[in-house]
């Protein structure tokens, strides 16, 4: 998650709400992991510093409720692909999203790629995350997983990129080449959803990179939320009417997760609100972590 939207979130929540009681803390190979509990909300926090970042939260009393607006926004991808039979999710977090999708689509094959084995343990231990026959977790670097998937000819109806955790950005998951590989594991009509950066110079670079690979995409932003979710489909984007029809069909199933999908279509637009002259990110040039602070 990007610093920009965390700040926005912190503002929304009020600073007093951010820190809870720490119920678990561990250092993994890749990050410091902390579990905080505040009332019913339990949060997985990476890169703990004075300015807290809540990575993934869930409501222990009402585990279906999706606490974060960016996670709710991710369901917007379903408007273009209402019935996916295979789903790839990059980045596990607390496992909220894969669990919800597994409940929504019990027959769909869901693969989750997470680089940090400690995150998987924590998701299982504190967030009720459970893998099953339809829901697999691979502890692996996503670039390696997806490149391997291109060789194996794997295809996914829905790919969700959610590997951007704020403190350190995996730069090899930001490049044109990576997005091309990701595009090639999309099935016919397959949809890519990416939770990305909404502030700093990186927003411009990243937007242009997605444009270079996917042409027009929905640049999904909700008012009162600092997030931006990219929704792309190589086969072309549907019109407003299709989106609204799909939203009506999806709404009953998504209600228990607190996702107001019927309000989404009007915010899906392809307008470029970034600097279109910014260079794109490639395997040769991807200083994402340096750009983030500019």
């Amino acid at each position, binding site marked *: 998650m990007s610093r920009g939207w965390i700040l926005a979130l912190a503002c929304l929540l009020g600073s007093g709400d951010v820190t809870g009681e720490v119920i678990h803390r561990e250092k993994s190979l890749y990050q410091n992991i902390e579990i905080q509990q505040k009332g019913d909300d339990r949060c997985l926090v990476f890169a703990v510093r004075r300015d807290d970042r809540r990575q993934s939260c869930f409501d222990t009393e009402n585990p279906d409720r999706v606490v974060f607006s960016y996670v709710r926004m991710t369901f917007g991808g379903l408007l273009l692909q209402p019935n996916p039979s295979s789903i790839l999710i990059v980045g596990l977090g607390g496992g909220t999203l894969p669990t919800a999708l597994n409940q929504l689509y019990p027959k769909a094959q869901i693969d989750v790629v997470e*680089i940090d084995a400690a995150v998987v343990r924590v998701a299982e231990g504190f967030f009720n995350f459970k893998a099953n026959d339809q829901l697999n977790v691979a502890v692996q670097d996503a670039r390696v997983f997806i490149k391997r998937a291109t060789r194996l000819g794997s295809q996914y109806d829905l790919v969700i990129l959610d590997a951007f955790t704020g403190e350190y950005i995996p730069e090899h998951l930001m490049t044109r080449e990576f997005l091309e590989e990701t595009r090639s594991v999309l099935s016919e009509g397959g949809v890519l959803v990416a939770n990305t950066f909404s502030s700093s110079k990186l927003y411009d670079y990243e937007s242009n990179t997605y444009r270079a690979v996917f042409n027009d995409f929905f640049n999904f932003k909700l008012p009162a939320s600092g997030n931006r979710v990219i929704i792309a489909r190589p086969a072309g984007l549907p019109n407003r009417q299709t989106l609204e029809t799909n939203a009506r069909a999806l709404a009953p199933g998504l209600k228990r997760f607190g996702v107001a999908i019927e309000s989404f279509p009007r915010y899906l637009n392809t307008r470029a609100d970034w600097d279109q002259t910014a260079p794109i990110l490639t395997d040769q040039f991807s200083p994402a972590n340096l750009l983030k602070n500019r």
Partner: protein
Amino acid sequence: MRRGMSDEQIETKLQRIGWLVLLLAFTSGFIIMSVELLGGRILAPYFGSSIYVWGSIISIFMVALAIGYLIGGRLSINQPNLGLYGLFFLLAAIGLLPIVFFADHAMDAVFSAIDDPRYGSLLASTILFFIPTALLGMIAPYSVRLMVDNTRHSGQVAGGLYFVSTLGSALGTLLTSFYLVLWFDMNTILITMVAVLLLAGSLAIAFNRKRS
């Protein structure tokens, strides 16, 4: 070319080129670490950026440097001269070129052959970085030999050379990670380093000619 010279003559001559040796040792230190740092970037598209990818890169650089030290030291026994020293730089420059032109092919083949990204990255690091790094490693002991004129000061000279080349390494790491990757494509950085090595080698060879 030096067969007619006494050992003493050689020593006097070599002392005068101390500044050049220091400059070139600095350059090689800079380039070793800059390439090592870029190594992580080069391997990431095929093997990810997990901790073991860095493990592969760092261990291969260490082994290559170790072997380079051994060979460079051995070659410094007889008739140490700037000509051979310059040749190390030229060869290292050539050794870097495959990283620019064949890295993708090599990594593609390794990726197809080996499933486990730990061993994949280890093999890819060996293929891409071993030879140029070993060649760059030969420079260090040879620099010591070029500058040492007596046993009493040999430790001091070696210390001074380590000082300069390690500072070069620090600067190479810092500049590459802070600025160069922000300003340039990786291949542009690598080609520039090839050019710098060619220039360094030519400089040493030119001095060797002039003085012999």
